[in-house]
């Protein structure tokens, strides 16, 4: 083993022994440090994963959704609009969508009810999302009752439950045949909730939206890119909010760590004086302090990141569920596909490891440059 390496290992041994001499204080520091890295890394992993999942899952969402506003509120779209839009150059398909919300007062849950075009779904039956089945406590073949707009009960047989893999988009869905949807909500037959428009060339979407808005001034076209950007904005914002809340904890930690790292105790100063008097160089003392700082910060960073990965991708981020769930009764069960953003992880490394290590070096250097006799007497 080369001499420099042997010397560094000996100093590392000494640094670890020094940390273990104050094991209570250092264990508390390591615990808090790891916790701060864990929460920050969990946030980074979670927001990145949800944003990517939204982009992947909604890649096949409609190119354009056309809504109508009437007297300042969203209203039903006349089916005549669909015929006109279908005639525009570049439009591949126009599909009216019939959908709405159904609030179940008994369960306190909101369901999304959508009319299905599936011929295999006969009248009087429904296909429901896995989350809805969980809340309603029903299985295939059971009956569910919905209260219609005329206050009459609508009985539906559960024909199927959507797979749990689809919970991220369809957990709260109740898919009904068109006629049952009409019975439930009593919509005018010549109107739909909105129109889903697809085009051959996505670059034509803004032009198409402009044409629709010109022909129908009350139309509100929503582009596919706007749908995707919504999720970027939501998770940046939510991530930002959580970071703002966590900032208090991070600041407390910073004060704690600074006090621990920057302010050497009299005992530590005396220790440095003794080391210098028995022949240690200033560079040896600095290496000792560097290794002490790195031992704590690297352990905290690596443990925090690995624990955060497990928290988000193996256990579906139970600590964040409360913030995301809000008032919801029905919350989907999903597992995020792992995403690790190298840039954000590097930033976290720079913020977590470098300041603490630097904070341990400066007082060490100050103490090491003082006369050993004065250091031992202080």
């Amino acid at each position, binding site marked *: 083993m080369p001499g420099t390496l042997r010397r560094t290992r000996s100093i*590392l041994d000494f640094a670890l022994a020094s940390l273990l001499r104050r094991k209570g204080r250092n264990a508390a520091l390591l615990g808090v440090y790891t916790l701060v890295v864990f929460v920050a890394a969990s946030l980074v992993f979670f927001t990145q994963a949800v944003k990517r999942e939204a982009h992947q899952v*909604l890649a096949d969402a409609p190119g354009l959704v056309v809504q109508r506003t009437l007297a300042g509120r969203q209203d039903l779209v006349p089916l005549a609009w669909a015929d006109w839009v279908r005639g525009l150059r570049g439009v591949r398909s126009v599909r009216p969508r019939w959908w709405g919300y159904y609030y179940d007062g008994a369960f306190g849950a909101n369901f999304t009810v959508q009319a299905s075009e599936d011929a295999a779904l006969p009248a009087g039956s429904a296909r429901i999302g896995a989350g809805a089945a969980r809340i309603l406590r029903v299985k295939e073949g059971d009956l569910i009752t919905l209260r219609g707009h005329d206050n009459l009960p609508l009985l539906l047989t559960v024909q199927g439950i959507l797979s749990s893999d689809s919970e991220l988009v369809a957990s709260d869905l109740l898919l009904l045949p068109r006629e049952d949807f009409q019975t439930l909500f009593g919509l005018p037959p010549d109107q739909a909730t909105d129109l889903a428009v697809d085009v051959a060339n996505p670059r034509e979407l803004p032009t198409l939206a402009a044409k629709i808005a010109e022909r129908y001034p009350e139309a509100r076209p929503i582009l596919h890119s706007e749908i995707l950007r919504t999720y970027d904005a939501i998770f940046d914002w939510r991530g930002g909010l959580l970071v703002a809340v966590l900032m208090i904890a991070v600041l407390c930690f910073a004060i704690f760590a600074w006090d621990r790292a920057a302010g050497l105790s009299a005992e530590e100063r005396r220790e440095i004086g003794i080391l210098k008097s028995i022949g240690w160089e200033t560079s040896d003392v600095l290496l000792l302090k560097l290794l002490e700082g790195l031992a704590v910060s690297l352990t905290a960073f690596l443990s925090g990141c690995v624990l955060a990965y497990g928290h988000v991708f193996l256990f579906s981020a139970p600590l964040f569920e409360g913030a995301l769930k809000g008032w919801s009764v029905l919350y989907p069960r999903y597992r995020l596909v792992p995403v690790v953003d190298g840039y954000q992880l590097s930033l976290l490394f720079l913020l977590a490891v470098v300041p603490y290590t630097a904070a341990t070096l400066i007082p060490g250097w100050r103490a090491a440059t003082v006369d050993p006799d004065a250091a031992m007497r202080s």
Partner: protein
Amino acid sequence: MRRSDLFLGLLALQLGLFLAMLVYARRAGRGVDPGVAECRRWVAELRLTDLCLFTEARYTRNPALADLHTPFQDHPTALEHFPSGTLVAPPPHLTSPHAWHPAPNPKHP
């Protein structure tokens, strides 16, 4: 065994786990996840526009289609309960199963 051997062993283990995490995430990102494929199928079939993440009220369910005229929807991502809706947990009587609390929910969505 020297303390440094133990520490370096532990650090190597942590580093190994950390690198495995990076490699696994990279590989998982390349393949097609069955959950994502299933969700995409339903999005394409039903022409869905939103993730089912915020089912708490009708105006939070489809943020991408938010209009300008409900409290949530000053703009598509404004949160109606901000900041309390995100930070304060709902009271238990609003979220527990109806069997124990048959009274109707006073806060209609």
